[in-house]
Every structure is written in structure tokens, then in C-alpha cells.
């Protein structure tokens, strides 16, 4: 059991434990903080696999930007135990049954899959130079198209967000 193995186990326990914490904790703020911890653990896994760029981006984008957004939304929505909608018993049982079945199926499928030994350290794909080269050679088309996706997201957000009274014959429409 070398250093990497020990690190792997520590990170894995941390990732799974924190992920359980996200689901199980009653307080949504705690959930978000557990989720941030999960992302850190996963970033650690990326580092073990020699993918530094991915690890950093994962922390900046997910743990940094998106989770802060989540926290803001939670604070704005002012969630607490009283405001939580109570689900009926039937819905709860159905949820447990379907979720549990999916979990069992996933577990069985993963167990039956044969796992190949991957070489942990030799791969250099995650290094930023290789990633850059791939992005501008093999994956240049997806890379460019994602910019169109962001453009549309911005245009859509601006149009929806900037609501003003319309010029058209709106009165009949509202009815």
C-alpha cells in the first residue's frame, strides 16, 4: 500500500461521506457546505490522476462559483424546517421504493462490470499543455460550438430578465 493508495482511500471516504451528508442533513446550508467538501475530495482524485487543470477548474467553477450561487439562492429563499413542504406517506414510500430499486440496479451493474487496472501516474492527458493541444485540434469544433451556447444563454437571460411593458395589444393577451 503506497502513498497514492492511502491518499485514494482517504479522499474516497471523504467524498462518499460528504455526499451522504448532502442528502441526509436537514439544513440546506449544511448540504451546500457538504457539497463543496465533496467537490474538494473529487478534485483531490483528479490530482492523483495527474489532471491538475481539471482539479483547479473543478474547484474554481463548482466549489467557487456555482456553490456560492446556491448559497445566495438558499439565503434569498429563506428555507427552514417549517417552510419545508410535507410529502404524503404514499409519495415517501414510492420515492424510497423507486430510489432504492435504482440504487440496487446500479450497484449490481457496477459490481458485475469487470474493472481494468488503469495506470495512475503515467497518463499525461490532464496536463494543461496536452489539454490545450487537444482542444485546438481534435475537439476544436465542440469548443467553438460551446461559445454559441453561451451566447444564446446570455441573450435568453437578458431578454427574460429585462421585462418591460410591451408595445403590443397586451390587454387581451393577459386575459
Amino acid at each position: 500500500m503506497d502513498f497514492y493508495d492511502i491518499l485514494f482511500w482517504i479522499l474516497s471516504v471523504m467524498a462518499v461521506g460528504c455526499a451522504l451528508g448532502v442528502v441526509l442533513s436537514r439544513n440546506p446550508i449544511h448540504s451546500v457546505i457538504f457539497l463543496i467538501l465533496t467537490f474538494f475530495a473529487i478534485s483531490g482524485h483528479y490530482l492523483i490522476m495527474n489532471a491538475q487543470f481539471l482539479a483547479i477548474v473543478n474547484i474554481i467553477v463548482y466549489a467557487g462559483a456555482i456553490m456560492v450561487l446556491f448559497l445566495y439562492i438558499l439565503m434569498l429563499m429563506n428555507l427552514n424546517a417549517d417552510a419545508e413542504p410535507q410529502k404524503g406517506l404514499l409519495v415517501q414510500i414510492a420515492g424510497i421504493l423507486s430510489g432504492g430499486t435504482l440504487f440496487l440496479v446500479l450497484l449490481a451493474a457496477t459490481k458485475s462490470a469487470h474493472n481494468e487496472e488503469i495506470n495512475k501516474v503515467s497518463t499525461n492527458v490532464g496536463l494543461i499543455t496536452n489539454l490545450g493541444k487537444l482542444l485546438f485540434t481534435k475537439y476544436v469544433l465542440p469548443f467553438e460550438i460551446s461559445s454559441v451556447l453561451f451566447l444564446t444563454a446570455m441573450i435568453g437571460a437578458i431578454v427574460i430578465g429585462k421585462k418591460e411593458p410591451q408595445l403590443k395589444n397586451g390587454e387581451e393577451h393577459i386575459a
Partner: protein
Amino acid sequence: MNFDAFILMKSEMSLTLIIFFLLILKVWDGIKDNTALLHVVNFLLLINLITGFFGNTDGSLFSGMFHTNNTIYLEKNILKLGMFIISLQSFDWLKNHKHLLEFYILMLCTLLGMDFMISSNNFLMFFLGLELSSIPLAALANFDLEKRKSSESALKMILSSAFASAIMLFGISILYGVTGTLDFTEMAPLLTTSQLSILAFLFVFAGFAFKLSSVPFHLWTADVYEGAPVSVTSYLSVISKGSIVFIFITILFQLFKSYDTIWVNVLNISLLLSITIGNLFAMRQENIKRFLAFSSIAQMGYILLALTNGTQTGESAAIFFLLVYTFSNLGAFGVVALLSAETGKETISDMKGFYVNNKFASWVMAICLFSLAGIPPTAGFFAKMFLVTAGAEKGNYTVISIAVLNMVVSLYYYLRIIKAIFIDKPDTPLAKLNGSMMMKISFVICISGAIIMGFASNLFEYINTITGK
């Protein structure tokens, strides 16, 4: 320097050029007159449609990320034709709309995404195309900015579509983990019948079924269709679903070829539920858009029936059906768009006595609904017949008989609207609706399509030859 990329990607290139042109027009803000702008956009879309018919060569670009052949060109042309018709039909609605250019920019971006999705030969490209074709649509669903229902439908759409994308992405990531590649041609021989890959296939299938709104993944459809502006609803039900069917055919028939016994069973369950539930719920709808939503769920069931064939026959039947469906469904939506733009009414009882003052629009609605129901002189009959015969080749007669019996049920609800239009006599019939010239042109295109396609048998043969490859 070679120009291969420009020739093979001409459809995408011309769309991108139009998008850039519209962006510059928006920033420049020089033309204040919406009618003039609409004419410019419609002209550009017409050119875009015409370019699709010339200089089509097969080829592959960007190390297999993008590939194209005659079938794909045809599929793109069907989508472009639908886009053009919808653009003509939105004239009345858009001529007073403040965000006219944004509407077209977003809509053309989704079309660009669909083009890339159909041409993709790689899960990464496919997924990007899928997202590009669904995220802007949620924004478009909100374009009736002052209506609450519109916002509600946009929110429902983006949340449920994100959930479906996540499930599909989970499936794709498992497939990547199992095979180590994202390329369709490389992945196909590596797929084994291990439980993990079959589970992954089911996740991918669930994502598709959601986008096709086939039962049991249909729950978002009616609400989204009802709230969205009519143009966006027709776009969702024809263009968006059409593009998904096209890529679904490629993925099922080529990538998951080795799983055909599995997906035929899954398809059979899903199609029977879609046809039956779609029909039963369509009967009791009062709102025409909700009605058309459930009718489109049932129609998707029939397309899935052709896909169970698993060969080229099923593929060409599905493509031909979608071409006919484009004409007939867009014609029906066009009449709803006219009614909605002029009066703001969208229910079946509002259409009572529609025939008294609107003879032409009533006939358009009648012919298109006959075509959707599959009544003989119209193209819909032949299209449905091809679908059912393609499905019957597998010899699964229980499924076929239930599907055909459901066609009889569907006649009831299609005729219910026709009865309201032609026979019911209200106290005050609707006044004459003065649709624009553009709307009338779109009606002429739709009914001539819905009739002529039925007689143009060489068209089906052409589709059959190019899908053969």
C-alpha cells in the same frame, strides 16, 4: 487551402452567417420597422432553405466529429423548411414584438444546434448540439413576456430538460467508462451485453424518450406547449422532435445495433403507452395547444413503431412521415397562431362557427387534421401506412393491432375540432380574421404539401434509395 469544410458545412455556415448578421443588425439598431425586418429575415431563411438543395457531397470533418451524407442533407432540409414555414406563421405575432431579432437569433441557434446534432458522429458533439437546441428553446418559451403562463412553461421546460439531460449524460459517461471512446463508429463494436452497458443504454434511451415526450416521460409536454407562444409550440412539436428522431435513428440503428432485441422491447412498451395515453388524454382537452400536444405524443408513438423495424425501411418511413407531419402539423398550428394573434383565444369552443367567416383557414385546418388523422386522400394516410407496414415487418402483430385500433380512436378527437369549425353554430360566430400575406403563403405551402406528398410516390422512393447508402 481547401474548401471542403465550407462545402460540407454549408448548412451550418449559412445559419451562422445569418445569426451574425442579425446580431449586427440588433447592435446597430438602424431598422426600427419590424415589418421590414421580418421581410429581410424571411428572405434570408428562404435563401438558406434553397442552398440546402445544391452541392451536396458526402464527407467527414474534424476527425469524425462531423459527418454528412445525402440522408443528413435531406433531414436538414426538412428542418429548414419547417423553420421557414414557422417564420412565415409568426409574422402576425412578431410584427408588434419588441424582441423580434432576439427571437430569430435564439431560434436559429437552436436550428444550428440541431444541424450539428444530426451530423454528429461523437457523443460530445451530439450532447453539445442537443443542449444548444434545447436551452435557447426554454428562453423562447418565455417570449410572451407579459403572460405568467409563458414564464411557467419556460421554467418547467428548463428544469425538466436539465434533469433529462443529466440522466442521459450519466448514461453517456458510463458508456465512455466501459468503452473508452465517445466516437460512434469506434464505440459500436466495443459494446458488450454487460449489465452496466445495458443500464447505460437505458439511461441514454430515457433521455431521448424525454425529448421525444414519449410516455412515461411526457409529463412536461402539455404544460410547456400550453404556455409557450404558438410559434414556439409548433417549433417544439415539429422541428425539435423531428431532429431528435433523426439522431435517435442513427444512434439506435448504428451505435446500439447489437442491442436490437433489447431496444425493440423497450420501444414496444413506450410506443404502446404513448399511443394509448396520448389518444385518451387528447380526447378530453379543451385548449387546442394542449390537444395538439397530446396528439403529437400519439404521433411520436407511431414513429417509434416504425423504428422497431430496425432497418432502412423503418428509417425511410420515419423520415417520410416527419416530412408530411411537418406540413400537416404546421398547418394546424398556423391556424391556431392566426386565431391566437388576432383574438388571443386558444380553445376548441372558441372555434365554433369558425367556418362562417373564415372559409380558407377552416379548410386548411380540416385538411391538416385529416392528414394528421391519416384519412386517405391526404399524405398523412400514406405516411402512416408506411410507418405501420415498416413496424409490421417484424411480425409483432399484437402491437400493430393495438396501434391501428388507436388510429380509429384518434379519428374521434380530430373530427371533434372539425365538427366545431364546420357544424356547430354559436350565437356570434368569430369575425373574419385578417391574416397577413405571409400567413396565407404558409397555409398554401402546408396544404399543398399535405396533399401533393400523398401522390408524389417518387419522393418516398428517393428517400428509400438515399437511406440505403
